[in-house]
């Protein structure tokens, strides 16, 4: 299959990445950190879209990989005291290795399930990990996870996140336009039909699950460098599993540019509502998920592409 670099999805994505690269030049700390979180949200959206968006097997438990990735960073920073760039690279490698192998092992019991069983299993697994991490001595002080402050500034974090966003976007684009991506989309449309046409269903969804878990683990690994401290609740909380789902659904399941759009809308709403509404901002997000899903299942990307078609 021939792929062109003029794919509108890729052009949109690269444009947004280039705009993001120019943001620190404005030298507005608030704007820079807002864009930093926007990029993290986008990677989470990519991660969810790569698996659930393409195959339509809904995961409620991507938060588990986020938490594992963050713990990888914590262990690297605490036990292997390396100077900044090495510790950073090491924690990314650790997080990828842990999340990738966890997803690979989990795929055997979990990916035999579909629909509600799979969704509930992922949810239960995340909760189980939260209980285990909250009560074991992997970290010293129970619920409080205090991260040793790495010697970095926000600009370095910003460009490293941008680099990872770029890499994840390219991986998503390559996967989507490869034989594997076609197989995944076919499975999403009709699994039995895909299987009858010779698609190796299990190994395809397993590959996508592993890649997706690694992406989520990378966000988790970046997170401590940016926030510098965390608790078990913030690492494994239900929000961590909710956010990728919301970003993916808002933007449009399975679409690359959709993750950017979903993350942008999410970030604007979260910034605007968090201070004024407190916990009610999650109520608004929950309502938004329901509304978007009922009214326009293809998400913001779907709406935008319809508008573009109309104007042509």
């Amino acid at each position, binding site marked *: 299959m021939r792929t062109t670099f003029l794919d509108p999805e890729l052009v949109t994505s690269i444009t947004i990445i280039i705009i993001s690269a120019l943001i620190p030049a404005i030298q507005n700390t608030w704007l820079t950190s807002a864009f930093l979180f926007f990029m993290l949200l986008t990677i989470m959206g990519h991660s969810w879209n790569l698996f659930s968006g393409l195959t339509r097997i809904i995961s409620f438990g991507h938060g588990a990989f986020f938490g594992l990735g963050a713990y990888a960073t914590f262990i690297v920073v605490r036990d292997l005291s390396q100077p900044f760039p090495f510790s950073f690279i090491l924690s990314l490698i650790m997080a990828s290795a842990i999340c990738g192998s966890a997803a690979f092992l989990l795929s055997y019991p979990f990916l035999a399930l579909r629909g509600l069983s799979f969704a509930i299993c992922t949810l239960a697994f995340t909760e189980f990990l939260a209980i285990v991490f909250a009560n074991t001595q992997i970290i010293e002080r129970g619920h409080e996870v205090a991260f040793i402050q790495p010697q970095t500034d926000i600009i370095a974090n910003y460009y490293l996140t941008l680099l990872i966003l770029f890499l994840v976007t390219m991986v998503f684009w390559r996967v989507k336009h490869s034989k594997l991506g076609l197989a995944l989309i076919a499975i999403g449309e009709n699994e039995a039909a895909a299987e009858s046409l010779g698609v190796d269903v299990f190994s395809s969804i397993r590959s996508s699950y592993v890649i997706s878990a690694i992406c989520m683990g990378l966000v988790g690994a970046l997170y401590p460098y940016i926030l510098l401290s965390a608790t078990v609740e913030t690492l494994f909380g*239900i929000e961590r599993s909710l956010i990728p789902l919301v970003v993916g659904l808002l933007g449009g399941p399975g679409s690359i540019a959709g993750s950017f759009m979903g993350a942008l809308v999410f970030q604007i709403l979260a910034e605007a509502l968090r201070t004024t509404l407190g916990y009610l901002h*999650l109520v608004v997000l929950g*309502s938004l998920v329901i509304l978007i899903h009922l009214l326009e299942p293809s998400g913001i990307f779907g709406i935008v592409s319809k508008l573009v078609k109309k104007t042509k």
Partner: protein
Amino acid sequence: MALEISQIITSLFFGFIEGSLYGLLGVGLSLALGVMKIVNLAHGPLAVLGAYMLFFLIYSLGISVPLSFLLSLAILATIGLIIYWGLINRIVTNEPSTLIVTYGLEIIIGNMLLSIFTGATRTVDLKLGSLNLGYFSVGLNRILALLIALASILAIDFMSKKTFFGIAMRATADDKDAAELMGIDTTKVYALSYSICALLACLFGLCYITTHSITPLIGGLFTLKAFVVAVLCGGNLILALAIGLLLGLSEILLTSFLIPSPYQNSVAFVILLVALTTLRRKRR
């Protein structure tokens, strides 16, 4: 040695009460799963909503306890109907959609309660006194909760087997199209079933808040425990009670004698993961 025996008997007894509550919780979810083939992820949050409704009616509005019980049940049944007609009815045949929409509901209910009632633990004290049973004494509120749970499970089982609505419900669950050809208004059956689910969730919530303390975001945990019961019982409501008892007993016994108490909730997750990955393999 005498101490050991009394400890075991106490654990068994409290495990039995806890288990009957889980049975009640599971029966509601099992009904939605059996009749409508949807996983109502909002089941636990609806229970929490019912519990907070009771708390609100008693402590903020000063309504008497029995009336508050009835009012919360009525309000929750109505909310169930509204949720069905407003949201679920449009997507009832589409499994991923019901998952997403009820997940959205879970987030909405939990965080709404969190912003109204804050994250502090709440409980409703019925001031019923306690009963001395020789080895130990037990609060009458727990006995009441046990009786409510057992009575509601038996009542729902009776309803589904002997009444016209129950038969219509089971017919719809078996074959929706055939039931429609026989003149059953399946949409109405679905709506009423969802309302009954909300009612059962509320009953559990009422029993729970009068015997335990509750926080707004505990709903997801309830849904998962209900799911353990619903998956293992496979639609048989009396079996649901048995599974609930098994879950309650194993939680209490394990945390009393084997594992540290923070791990209590992980028992349900382990059972769930093992059950789903072994029993439901290749099932959709």
